[in-house]
């Protein structure tokens, strides 16, 4: 690995100060993305700031919401009884990601900032607008079977790799960030940036910002939620397509509330609000779910290699919604 300076911090304020001293400083928590990319030569930090000793690993529960500290490990969140009861979609998404070892290391904050698995981003040789802005995109005419079909641009078609973030998108999570002397709160919709002409900018975070927590409001339709992940292997593989969904029903059996988000399909964790509008107030039926799925993928732009993802995504949506409707809470 390339050399860097190591610093250990024990306060959020100290973390901000250390970051702001050097534009090439990076935080390390689980390290599973950062060190992988340093070895690949993609990330080149001058300073690595160890934030593992910040007091940010707790999961705090109130009747209205759950606050998950940014340093909570993926496995601890997946195993938490409150998370499993209130937000099964999140527990399932976390359990479906990576391997047992990686889940013990990876943190919630780090998972939000996970970088794409696009081979052209990671190989440090190909043209990649995300890695070297303005250099071009070799994925567009390359091997792009696993790439995104939603939210793409001329500059970038890299898929966002996270499972957890897809569940958080469906859960309307809020991301709490320490900026200057206060906390700034971002709705999930406002946190990620579409690639457009600057795919190197992936979130609204500025250098020096520290994610301190993720908050999720409890709600009946989030209790009745599921995550479905489709991939080339049964385990330890990134999603080709994933679906996070929750349904809440009115007394007459119609759908009162719904949440739907997609993974593997988008350049960012993809909230399918068009599909939710189709579902709102309607009675469950195969036709309704298919119309919702069509709406979710209506804007898809595919390549010859990843065109299969559009139909696969629709069928995955129908399957999850059907399962939720059959197993009423």
């Amino acid at each position, binding site marked *: 690995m390339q*050399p860097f300076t*190591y610093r250990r911090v024990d306060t959020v304020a100290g973390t901000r100060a250390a970051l702001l001293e050097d534009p090439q400083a990076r935080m390390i928590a689980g390290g599973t993305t950062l*060190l*992988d990319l340093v070895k690949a030569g993609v990330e080149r930090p001058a300073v690595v700031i*160890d934030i593992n000793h910040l007091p940010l690993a707790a999961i705090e529960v109130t009747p209205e919401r759950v606050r998950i500290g940014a340093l909570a490990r993926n496995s601890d969140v997946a195993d938490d009884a409150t998370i499993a009861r209130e937000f099964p979609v999140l527990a399932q998404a976390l359990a479906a990601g990576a391997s047992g*070892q990686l889940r013990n290391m990876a943190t919630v904050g780090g998972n939000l900032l996970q970088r794409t698995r696009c081979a052209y981003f990671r190989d440090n040789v190909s043209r990649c607008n995300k890695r070297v802005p303005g250099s071009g995109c070799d994925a567009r005419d390359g091997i792009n079977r696993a790439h995104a079909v939603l939210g793409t641009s001329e500059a970038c078609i890299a898929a966002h790799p996270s499972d957890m973030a897809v569940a958080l998108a469906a859960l309307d999570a809020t991301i709490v960030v320490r900026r200057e002397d206060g906390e700034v709160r971002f709705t999930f919709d406002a946190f990620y940036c579409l690639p457009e002409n600057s795919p190197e900018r992936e979130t609204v975070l500025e250098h020096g910002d520290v994610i301190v927590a993720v908050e999720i409001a409890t709600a009946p339709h989030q209790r009745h939620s599921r995550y479905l992940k489709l991939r080339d292997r049964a*385990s330890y593989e990134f999603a080709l397509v994933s679906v996070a969904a929750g349904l809440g029903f009115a007394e007459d059996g119609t759908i009162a509330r719904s949440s739907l988000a997609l993974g593997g399909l988008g350049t960012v964790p993809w909230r399918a609000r068009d599909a939710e509008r189709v579902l709102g107030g309607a009675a469950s039926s195969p036709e309704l779910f298919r119309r919702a799925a069509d709406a979710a993928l209506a804007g898809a732009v595919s390549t010859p290699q990843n065109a299969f993802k559009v139909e696969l995504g629709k069928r995955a949506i129908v399957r999850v919604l059907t399962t939720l409707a059959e197993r009423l809470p």
Partner: protein
Amino acid sequence: MIRCSLRINGSVRAVDLEAETTLLDALREHAGLTGTKKGCDRGQCGACTVLIDGRRVLSCLTLAVMHDGEDVTTIEGLAGDAGLHPMQQAFVEHDAFQCGFCTSGQIMSAVGLLAEGRARDTAAIREGMSGNICRCGAYPNIVDAISSVAEYGI
């Protein structure tokens, strides 16, 4: 160089490390414990699995200096005075390896899996062990070995 005190298999070793030294390299190159294997060095194969404070992690994707003062357990620390650890014994009895390169990672991961309480049945064992690749394909016997320990206890 950073002076770092690593507690490996119960004994404390003071080592001077570059910041960028992974825990895996610290174990192999500085502590002389080569039982932990470097397979892919990218967090994809599981050969470098060790326990930190009892939890299984990948030693190739973490910096040694991050674990100053923490308890690291490697394959060398598993056997006690009474002989092999039950998981080691089970791997021998079930012929759960061929070339052996992945084996220390498999065993450390299996011990971690059982500590997590996730080895409920063979399907759960397969899922829980998916981060450990065996290029010889000894998976059926690996699952048998872990099942036998899960069933009869460590």
